[in-house]
């Protein structure tokens, strides 16, 4: 990952530098106008969160069913990124909704289920922070549960009546709007990969520090 990290950082930085140019050049949506431009960061942030949810869920499954300790480091890192990307989505959504719907928050199916998913991963982190010994397996179960909850968030707009548009809207966007959207999404997914690598490294170094502390106790 170290060899890939620097080139990926340069690519992601370049993409985030180009993204505003594409977003400004995208046409205004006919009914919402300028405020719809929030979409170009709002949607990619949720995609970053879904990617983090999938990584955390798969890593948690490896911890639970295969007893892989190294997967636990990835699961913790991904769970934290679910909270970070979800926070961006949860903060940008109301700013868009205030103008488009006239309210900051509506308890519709998509918003509420996304908030519940975010809270599941907040509870994962709280469990890791305050759960004490053995919290790894319990939090892995929470991570797996969170991953299975994610498809409901995505499909909620098709299953229930909601203010959010259906999932068919994004694939049917004209190229002038679709290109900036998918470009921003790729940039966010690249950022997710970078942050995951950094956060996993932090967990690995913490594990090494714990081993050193044990070695120090043995040597005294």
């Amino acid at each position: 990952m170290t060899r890939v990290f620097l080139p990926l950082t340069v690519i992601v930085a370049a993409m985030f530098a180009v993204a505003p140019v594409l977003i400004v050049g995208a046409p205004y949506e006919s009914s919402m106008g300028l405020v719809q431009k929030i979409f170009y960061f709002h949607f990619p942030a949720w995609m970053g969160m879904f990617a983090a949810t999938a990584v955390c869920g798969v890593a948690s499954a490896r911890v639970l069913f295969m007893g892989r300790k190294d997967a636990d480091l990835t699961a913790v890192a991904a769970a934290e990124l679910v909270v970070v990307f979800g926070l961006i989505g949860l903060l940008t959504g109301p700013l868009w909704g205030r103008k488009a719907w006239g309210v900051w928050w509506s308890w519709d199916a998509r918003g509420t289920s996304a908030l519940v998913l975010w809270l599941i991963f907040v509870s994962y982190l709280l469990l890791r922070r305050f759960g004490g010994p053995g919290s790894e397996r319990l939090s892995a179960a929470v991570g797996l549960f969170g991953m299975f909850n994610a498809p409901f968030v995505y499909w909620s707009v098709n299953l229930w009546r909601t203010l959010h548009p259906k999932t068919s809207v994004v694939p049917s966007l004209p190229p002038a709007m679709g290109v900036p959207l998918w470009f921003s999404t790729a940039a966010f997914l690249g950022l997710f990969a970078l942050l995951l690598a950094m956060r996993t490294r932090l967990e690995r170094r913490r594990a090494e520090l714990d081993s050193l502390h044990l070695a120090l106790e043995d040597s005294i």
Partner: protein
Amino acid sequence: MNSVSRRRHLLAVVVLLVMCWAVVPGAALQSQPPTSPAQEGFVPIDQLQPKEQLPAAPLVMAAYAVAWLVIFGYVWSLWRRLSQVEQEIASVSQRVAGGGRQ
């Protein structure tokens, strides 16, 4: 009252009623203040009074600012935590190498 005068009275009442139907609603409508577009149901957002429109630009700028604040805040937090751990590793490694002496 004979039948002719009764017929004239009836005719007068009918004429009066017809005049009321024809004139009064029109007069009532004329006396109403003109309704604004907002009272008539759906109004396209670009036809609202300027004071009723919420400006979009501050919301868009706030959304992008919030996104960047969260990202930079998280990167800074990661960098700080990594630096602390690296410092601790260096310190504990020295102590391990020195046989546990402070």
